[in-house]
């Protein structure tokens, strides 16, 4: 299962980015193996509709869950429709910290 975590940099050691649509990077991590792939977000500086566009991007990469801080209503609508579960992480740690918290089932679902 692939989990997408919003990140400030291109590796799991960088901090979790709280924004979704304008996150600099998306780190896609494999829940089972812990291997990862970093995607630079082409919409980070975009003007409009960045939430749903970023959602499209992670759907195309087959993410099944998302871990982020703030999620806009439009992005949420898209992810809900596609069956991607969203979790909130605001503890200020690294992508790997968020990944561990996800694996330990300690993250809250985004409301």
């Amino acid at each position, binding site marked *: 299962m692939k989990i997408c975590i919003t990140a400030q940099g291109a590796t799991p050691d960088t901090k979790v980015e*709280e*924004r979704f649509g*304008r996150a600099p990077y998306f780190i896609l991590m494999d829940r089972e193996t812990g291997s990862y792939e970093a995607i630079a977000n082409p919409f980070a*500086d975009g*003007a*409009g509709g960045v939430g749903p566009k970023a959602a499209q991007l992670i759907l195309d990469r087959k993410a099944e869950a998302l871990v982020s801080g*703030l999620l*806009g*209503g439009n992005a949420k609508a898209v992810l809900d429709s596609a069956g991607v579960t969203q979790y909130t992480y605001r503890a200020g740690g690294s992508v790997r910290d968020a990944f561990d918290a996800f694996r330990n089932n300690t993250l809250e679902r985004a409301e």
Partner: protein
Amino acid sequence: MIRIAVISGKGGTGKTMVTAALSRLLSGSLVLADCDVDAANLELVQSPRLLRTDPFMGMKSAVIDPAACVQCGECEAHCRFGAVDRDDDKYRVNPLRCEGCAVCTAVCPAGAVTMQPRQTGEIKYSETARGHLVHARLVSGAGNSGLLVHAVKKTALERDGQCDLFLIDGPPGTGCPLISTISGVDAVLVVTEPSVSGLHDLKRVVAVCRQFRPRVLVAVNRWDLDPSQMEKIEAWCRDENISLIGRIPFDPAVIDAVRAGVPVTETGASPAAQAIRTLAVTIEQELSNPDRPK
């Protein structure tokens, strides 16, 4: 963090004055945002010290390269916003009308149209006596004020998300900027006035708020200017089960305070100042009681 937006429906009801006074009265750490980006006035009564300014890039805008243009007119024919002007067979895009849809780039056979980023405003981050203030200035005549509202709110949340309270001075109306303002807030305080128009606009803006999740609270400014309209507002709020929590009297001290650049609550015990103090206490009680009806 509790997020409160002060809105009005009708313009000029005293939203900004109430927001400024509440910022001094509500307890806890606080970040302020002026989301009335068309006409941002909160700074006029908060004496902000500017810390930084960031450009706001609105939607991209189409630009036609005259050297590459073959004057076929396809862009003009397909533009739904009337943004392509023709002058003696020269085509150019009017940035005030362009909505950035990029249809012209898709239909141009010569590849002469490109989408270019355009700065349509700036976001300002300042320090005030009561926490940080995020405010903005939109290039006049520019679109995307809803997007700028969104950017202002995000800046406040990113930089000051640890504060106890997020207090927003909202825009008038019920359209795009208002919707951007109230999305994600816990409560809205609608400041209205006792007039036929005030009540009419109150009803409309409450209908919009109910499509989102915030608790709706109402305060009436200059309520004594027309007690019979005041009764109608009271009756409507009662019927709709909305908390009418503030009655601020007409008071010349308000204008004097605005002219002095401070909230009216800083200039002594005028009747309006007293009423706003009572309002602040009531808001804190309302927000600490999660079971009240929306």
